[in-house]
């Protein structure tokens, strides 16, 4: 099955069965928590914003 077919299949099922939203919530919150923990470890200390800005400049998201 192509990934785009999977998107369609999942949406079709979701329309009939809102219980599937629970899986989606788990995925979203797992990414949210992983990101929070990763960057807290990367930019430990009082100067979080400064370290974060250096990182953002490095990846081109900030000039």
């Amino acid at each position: 099955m192509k990934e785009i077919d999977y998107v369609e299949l999942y949406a079709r099922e979701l329309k009939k069965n809102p219980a599937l939203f629970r899986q989606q919530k788990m995925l979203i919150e797992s990414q949210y928590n992983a990101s929070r923990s990763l960057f807290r470890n990367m930019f430990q200390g009082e100067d979080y914003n400064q370290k974060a800005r250096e990182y953002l400049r490095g990846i081109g998201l900030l000039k």
Partner: protein
Amino acid sequence: MGAGYIIKGEVIIINRELTELDRFVMDFLQVLKKHSDYLIVSGFVSISTGRTRGTEDVDILVPVMSKSQFTNLFAELRENGFWCYQSENPDEVYDYIKEMVSVRFARVKEMYPNIEFIPITPAKKAKYFEFTHPQKMRVHNFEFKVPPIEFEILYKELVLAGDKDLKDAKHLRTIFSDLIKKEKFKEYEAVVRMEL
């Protein structure tokens, strides 16, 4: 079992629990709404209706405001636990807004998700059109405004057109198949094409 969503008046009510991503957006909007109108566009529209993918940013259109209005908004966002990627100084951040460049806000001591705060004026024809034609959506007690679904689909298919965007559009076309209207696609296509 129920349905994934219902329509009540002019509001699409999504039948699910709030996620941490919703709470993040809700907290940001609680402050923003005191200072300005807004419209949430792009990925969050698909994700809030069940598209199973992660996201790093939530795009919000905000009409350009005066420097003093922005300074007040900026101060209140900071008081409520948000920091701005660009600077701690609202004067410096306003320089971006003036130049119609997006700025980003996240929760203190967090990087992602972030709000991409996108300044708009009536000169941005397509963006201003969606901004002035909002669709209300609700998840539990969280009500927010998004573009008309047909507009969002066309924007993703014609303007953004990346792999992720086409999948988002497919998701919206499928989940809202009994809601979307052919004539709306016709009406919106000319407007969306102004972005090309």
